[in-house]
């Protein structure tokens, strides 16, 4: 048997993790990538993968648990009318196969039985190590699809403005929650982020209140960050928020409530009012730097 793996690109880390995940099924792994000149068209790409899987008698099709990975897999599932399991941590082959998959952005895990064939699974990001894809042969294909499958495709890409440090890539994120109290209150958060060359983040309560744009929101329905340090100021630690910052190497929480649930996920704690603590940190940084 063969397991077909959809790669977003041969060098893409999450795609390489999908290869590792696919190998756990114990069958031959066949990674497939689309020609880089090929414009993204999810239905057309899915159709090509369906045909390749059928030609090779694949027992499973695996994709990375990314926007495009889950989307292409959903198209395959709809075309074949088979079940699909998104964001799997582990899979145990069998009839039925069993998977452990992420719910709530990873705050909860689900054990499920999958009644279908081929198995359609996406690999949860960062659940397993990336496999060196150079060791296996990546087959590069072009989509050969019907007109109907080509209706929805990327017609153009508008480049992003490149001002400031990107939240997703920042080494330091200073993030404010409801405790900041107002849009103006973010001045001290911005000051500390600027001193550390970092980005400003916020919780969902803050964007819902209109204090910051959604592009600053860290969380399950916002940006996922992975800085060296995440400084959470006046954030209580709702699962919605923690799903976005659990990739941080270290977490410093500043909160006046010593019982706040954020402290259960923090490496460092300062018990206090962010309106006093954050300016004190900024002025200490200036002092140390002379």
């Amino acid at each position, binding site marked *: 048997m063969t397991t077909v793996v959809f790669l977003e690109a041969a060098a893409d880390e999450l795609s390489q993790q999908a290869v590792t995940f696919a190998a756990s099924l114990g069958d031959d792994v066949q990674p497939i990538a689309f020609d880089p000149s090929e414009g993204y068209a*999810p*239905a057309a790409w899915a159709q090509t993968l369906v045909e390749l899987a059928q030609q090779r008698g694949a027992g499973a099709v695996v994709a990375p648990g990314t*926007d495009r990975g*889950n*989307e292409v*897999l959903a198209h395959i*599932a*709809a075309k074949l009318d*088979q*079940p*699909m399991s*998104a*964001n799997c941590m582990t899979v145990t082959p069998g009839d*039925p196969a069993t998977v452990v998959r*992420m*719910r709530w*952005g990873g*705050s*909860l*895990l*689900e*054990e*499920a*039985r*999958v*009644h279908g064939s081929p198995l359609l699974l996406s690999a949860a990001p960062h659940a397993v190590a990336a496999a060196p894809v150079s060791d296996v042969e990546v087959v590069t294909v072009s989509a050969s699809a019907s007109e109907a499958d080509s*209706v*929805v*495709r*990327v*017609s*153009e*890409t508008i*480049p*992003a403005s490149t001002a400031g440090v990107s939240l997703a890539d920042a080494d330091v994120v200073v993030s404010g929650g409801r405790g900041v109290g107002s849009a103006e209150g973010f001045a001290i958060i911005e000051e500390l982020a600027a001193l*550390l060359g970092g980005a400003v983040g916020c919780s969902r309560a803050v964007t*819902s209140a*209109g204090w910051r744009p*959604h592009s600053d929101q860290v969380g399950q*329905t916002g940006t996922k960050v992975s800085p*060296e340090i995440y400084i959470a100021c006046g954030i209580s630690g*709702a*699962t919605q928020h923690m799903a976005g910052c659990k990739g941080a190497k270290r977490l410093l929480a500043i909160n006046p409530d010593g019982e706040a*649930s954020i402290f*259960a*996920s*923090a*490496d*460092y704690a*300062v*018990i*206090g009012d962010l309106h006093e*603590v954050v*300016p*004190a*940190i900024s*002025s*200490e*940084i200036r002092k*140390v730097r002379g």
Partner: protein
Amino acid sequence: MNILVCVKRVPLTGGKITLTEDERAIQTRHLGFTVSPHEECAAEEAIRLVEQHGGESVVLTLGPAEAEEQLRDMMAIGIDRGIHLVTDGGEWDPQATTSAIVDAIRADGAQFDLILFGNESADAGNYQVPVRVAYALGHPVINGIKGIAVDGDTIRCEREVAGGRDVYAAPLPAVVSVLEGINLPRYPSVPGRMRAKRKPLVSSEPARPGARLEMVRLRLPEGSTKQAEVLGNGPEAAPRVVEILTEIGVM
């Protein structure tokens, strides 16, 4: 234009998730409920599009009797009417959910030009119901959208990707799933809540087919609790914080 928006009732989980004794659900005894965040934005987008182009907005949910609360919430911010597919509260897998939604769309008198979803539900996160519904109806589907413009019989959508925004277009009728951030949903007003009580709501009880993605049990991820090192109380902690920032090399 006529727009259907599909939403899901989910618990407001707060800081810590606790499971029921049978480990098949979240313990919600002390929790409030809401509409999944992406879907709340889908409802807001439906209201704005109808304000702009005319027509009717309809909200649909598959969920327990209590999910009427979420339908009324969406009608309170401006959705015109509701469809409630009432369940006994148990899990419906994505394929079962799809067939119930598709049956309800076919049974409804309206011809929907646009069917909006959230990209994925906050709880199950299956990432597939919008695509399955689109295939069942023979409509094009565009996912993960943060910008919509309708021009005649065409919908133009923008999706954030690394380095920019991808642009898609499709003929209507179409299925589109959106992401939070596409808009900032309005809050319901008191008169809005009063009006919502009188808006039409039809309910039915679809039969649940067997699950092909069958949930067996839930569990919390291991090792998710840490013992934080307390650096101090109030502003006096600042020198110790800066020591830590220096140690980890971000100064």
